[in-house]
């Protein structure tokens, strides 16, 4: 499985004005079992990039192929996990997880078994018959992960999935996600604006510049997992990534230190 993005650009039309360039000439290759983060400040087009990869939006130019084939949003090779709560509130937890299997006409029984397997993986099997409104934010995102995993995609696309959670829950889910990833060895493309999250999770960090989003640098992260957020090596990579973001997001004049005006 290889995902190849070549020269991808995206413009958004603006009435009576020149279109806004959101992404510019993104080229990226993602291989089997890789965990890649796409990192950038808000407005850099990182979510747009992920949506184009998922087939939910189309690129203005450039190409994306998965093993040489063009992307279809309905393909079961990819599944996406959204930032906001995306569970179906009228379905129980397990019926949410079986949704994708229903779309593939998996029988009721086997679908239930597969769903339970993935609910077990995210530690929520005992909540199978509850409704989403009975769950906390972290639990809901775990269900969303189980729902995406249940169709057994090769690539998991995650759009700031933990962005709405408190710091503690967020750290816990990051840890759990890595455990699941190590067990299932999916390819993960993870969009985030948190440097810490990107360094903690990924093999490679694709740092984007502010609008239009261009690839500033792809940072390799060779640290062994589980990673220690307080180690000097972790801090070194984090510093490097932060520097990349700061230098690309600050126009020159912002770097002049103004005396405080009273």
């Amino acid at each position, binding site marked *: 499985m290889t995902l190849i993005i070549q020269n991808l650009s995206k413009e958004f039309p603006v009435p009576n004005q020149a279109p806004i360039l959101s992404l510019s000439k993104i080229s990226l290759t993602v291989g089997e079992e890789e965990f890649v983060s796409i990192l950038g400040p808000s407005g850099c087009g990182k979510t747009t990039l992920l949506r184009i990869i998922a*087939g939910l939006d189309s690129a203005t130019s450039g190409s994306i192929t998965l093993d040489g084939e063009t992307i279809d*949003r309905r393909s079961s090779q990819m*599944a996406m996990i959204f930032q*906001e709560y*995306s569970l179906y*509130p009228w379905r129980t937890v397990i019926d949410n997880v079986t*949704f994708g299997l229903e*779309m593939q006409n998996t029988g009721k029984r086997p679908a239930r078994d597969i769903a339970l397997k993935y609910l077990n993986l995210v530690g929520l099997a005992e909540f199978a018959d509850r*409704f989403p*409104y009975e769950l906390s934010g972290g639990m809901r995102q775990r269900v969303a992960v189980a729902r995406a995993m249940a169709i057994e995609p090769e690539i998991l696309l995650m759009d700031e999935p933990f962005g709405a959670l408190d710091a503690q829950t967020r750290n816990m889910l990051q840890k759990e996600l890595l455990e699941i990833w190590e067990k299932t060895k999916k390819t993960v493309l993870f969009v985030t604006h948190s440097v810490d999250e990107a360094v903690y999770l990924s093999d490679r960090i694709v740092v984007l510049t502010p609008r239009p989003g261009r690839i500033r640098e792809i940072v390799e992260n060779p640290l062994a997992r589980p990673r220690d957020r307080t180690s000097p090596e972790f801090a070194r990579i984090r510093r490097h990534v932060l520097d990349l973001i700061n230098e690309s997001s600050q126009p020159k004049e912002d770097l002049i230190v103004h005396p405080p005006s009273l």
Partner: protein
Amino acid sequence: MRSLRILLLPILLIVGWEVAAYFIDNPFVLPSLSTVIPILLHPFSTEYTLGTGSLVENAAASLFRVASGFLLAAIIAIPLGIGMGRSIFLHDFLDSTIELLRPIPPLAWVPLALAWFKIGFVSIVFIIFIGAFFPILLNTIDGVKSVKKTWVEVAETLGARETDVLTKVILPGSAPTVWTGLRVGFGIAWMCVVAAEWMPGISLGLGYLILYAYNFGQTNLIIAGMAVIGVIGILIDQVFRAGERKWFSWRSLER
């Protein structure tokens, strides 16, 4: 204590009514309760309804007409509303016409109904249809538009086709709002039936009964008929509310 608060005003009204009836002493203006209650206690008897159908027969006739017009409205308004909620083209094509027709009261259609469908069942059903149609349609459009875009996108990335999106996301996602439309639509339909039964050539129905009683100067029968209309209206509304609690509680519980 709460039940006392709820019942206090009705009790006061009944007492006040009796007192007023005693002093007015004119059963045509305000009959005593003692002349209304016996009618309500004999719903199957025709003796209390001046030789026309019994209360139950009249109520059944009205209910059947309302149910017919209401179902017809639902069958047309729900698919149309889904189409208008999903397709900007269909919405723009129909919206101005609908907005123009909507403020016309159902009763303003009576002369046209008589001209088109003659006297009888079809005309009544048509008036009820007009009354129920717009609340169901507008709520369906709202319901479909309120379906979160993310819900649809999740379905698509999980492999859903157009029809899957419609039956497994749009329909269940909009169902609570559609249900509200049905409840409101039925309420309006029920109000319309009474007036629709004042059309010429009708010989059964609660609306007809009230008018019939008026022609005989029997105000106690008028009030009994009104009471039946009110009670049936409440009961059906409660059925809709019970359905809402049973099937759509997720909407109010969702954070």
